[in-house]
């Protein structure tokens, strides 16, 4: 029987697990998924001096630098908030802006401090744009599932459908979370097909609006599969660090022949992030 690890080593391992769990809350805003599920977390290590170092990696050197910065700085914030944090270093590897972003992260320089004159104000509008897209996609997933479950229901008949009419499924729970992130009502009587401000559409616009939400969902799902595939191409072995995309389960989302096959080696916790 192997001997138990020394207590200090066990404590470091526990902190690494806690760090990974904290990173489950960091989303790629563009793909609307945790960076841990996407395989973007390359390594998590607590050194003997207690400093936590996390390396992040992305599918290409040319992933958009504003999104890259958002994920890296969100990761640092999430890790710094952990109890007992004694120094946190987040490093973005192999990106065209690695040097710039890593310097900014080390200095806690913020977006403007990091990008200097390339930054006007902040990235709040960018975040909001992608929260809205994530909401539109979640809305479409929930309503398309409802249409399939109830063949009597037509697209035009979605006018007046409320949250209470949706079955209690992962897609419905995901939709409620996306609504909360935008400050929209999650009351059972709230209508499902609404604009970015939560206003229902006029009845005659319903098919068009559903159709547009579908194009948003196709775009996000397609990007997610492409980015996942590119990461696996770029970093051999990274498939083992990816979890299946939770809401790519509609009947048009066929299995990815090059998809992840192995079980996660990075995810030391047994928990699986819900959609």
């Amino acid at each position, binding site marked *: 029987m192997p001997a138990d690890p020394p207590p200090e080593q066990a404590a470091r391992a526990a902190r690494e697990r806690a760090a990974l769990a904290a990173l489950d809350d960091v989303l790629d805003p*563009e793909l609307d998924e945790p960076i841990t599920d996407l395989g973007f977390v390359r390594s998590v290590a607590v050194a003997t001096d207690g400093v936590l170092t996390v390396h992040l990696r992305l*599918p*290409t*050197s*040319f*992933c*958009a*630098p*504003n999104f890259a910065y958002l994920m890296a700085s969100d990761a640092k914030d999430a890790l710094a908030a952990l109890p007992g944090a004694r120094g946190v270093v987040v490093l973005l590897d192999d990106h*065209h802006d690695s040097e710039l972003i890593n310097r900014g992260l080390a200095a806690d320089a913020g977006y403007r401090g990091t*990008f200097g*004159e*390339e*930054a*006007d*104000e*902040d*990235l709040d*509008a*960018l975040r909001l*744009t*992608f929260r809205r*897209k994530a909401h539109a996609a979640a809305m479409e997933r929930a309503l398309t599932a409802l249409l399939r479950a109830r063949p009597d229901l037509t697209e035009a008949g979605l006018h007046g459908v409320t949250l209470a009419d949706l079955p209690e499924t992962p897609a419905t729970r995901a939709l409620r979370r996306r609504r909360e992130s935008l400050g929209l009502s999650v009351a059972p009587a709230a209508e499902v097909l609404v604009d970015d401000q939560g206003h229902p559409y006029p009845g005659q616009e319903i098919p068009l609006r559903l*159709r*547009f939400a*579908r*194009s*948003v969902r*196709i*775009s996000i*799902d*397609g*990007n997610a*599969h*492409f980015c996942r*595939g*590119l990461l*696996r*191409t*770029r970093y051999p072995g990274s498939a083992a660090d990816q979890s299946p995309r939770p809401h790519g389960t509609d*009947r*048009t*989302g*066929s299995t*990815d*022949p*090059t998809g992840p096959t192995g079980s996660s080696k990075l995810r030391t916790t047994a928990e699986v992030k819900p959609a």
Partner: protein
Amino acid sequence: MYTKDGEDYFIVDAHIALWDARPENQLNIHGRQFIDCFYDYHRNLSPESELWPYEDYLYYGGERLLKDLFVDGHVDHAIFQPARLGAFYRRGFGQTEEAFGLAQRHPDKLTYNHHWDPRFEREGLDQLRRDAERFQLKGVKLYTAEWQGASRGYKLDDPWAYRYLEACQELGITNIHVHKGPTIRPLDRDAFDVSDVDKAATDFTGLNFVVEHCGLPRLEDFCWIATQEPNVHAGLAVAMPFIHTRPRYFAQIIGELLYWLDEDRIQFSSDYALWTPKWLIERFVDFQIPEDMRDEYPPITVAQKKKILGLNAAAMYDIDVPAGLGVPEPAGA
């Protein structure tokens, strides 16, 4: 021309390149990163039988291009859409002289489009007039994420961009191919957003705006503007190879494009040498919307395929289509 099941298809590959990414042409690490990114696209989305060795991918030259397109690749006519990438490559990424030379030797097979950058302001505008004369330009390729000095991108509705578009209109350069990339100035907003194309298309109704990779990764934003602007078109660069790795996703892309635009505003392209045209054309001719997706998308007709594979771009570029290779109007279902 490609023939299958008694149908003849006239093929125009609307987006090809002749690049040089060899180490001696790389200006800095970004030159290496850029071609490696392309090579990963190639490796990720190509069938195994179509994979190129990295060395070939760095530079393939004119003879190989002619063979891949016109001998092996079924292509009747192809259009160069060069990217300059002057911040990454010493002599640029797209090889202007070599590509233009090929086009001069094979005017029936090749059209050379050039590029401009509004951040060169007055000087670039004068250069555009000289380029229009020298290359007899009908179109230009604009990469909005091009880095230049402290700036890493521009928008089509920037004041200087409008002056260049005015010049294009005046010079008869009617086909504006817009390729969005990951950087823009300022970095506050989404660099892939196409609302600037929307504005330009509204203000320059005499120009065609072909949005490359049909707006991907923002297919939805692209579809939304294209449905409102009749002079906005979809280029299928990058979208095509999904026909192999994710055929159902490809069905959704083509289904959405046919729904939001129409069959006259979608153009095939291989994005050579990211991918080679032969297998893409053969797969597309064989392609059909899967049965269980027909609630959302009607089947694609032979006439629609003929338009997408060549007739649409031929009409835009006044390329002669041999008798018998057109489609009767309207295409019908």
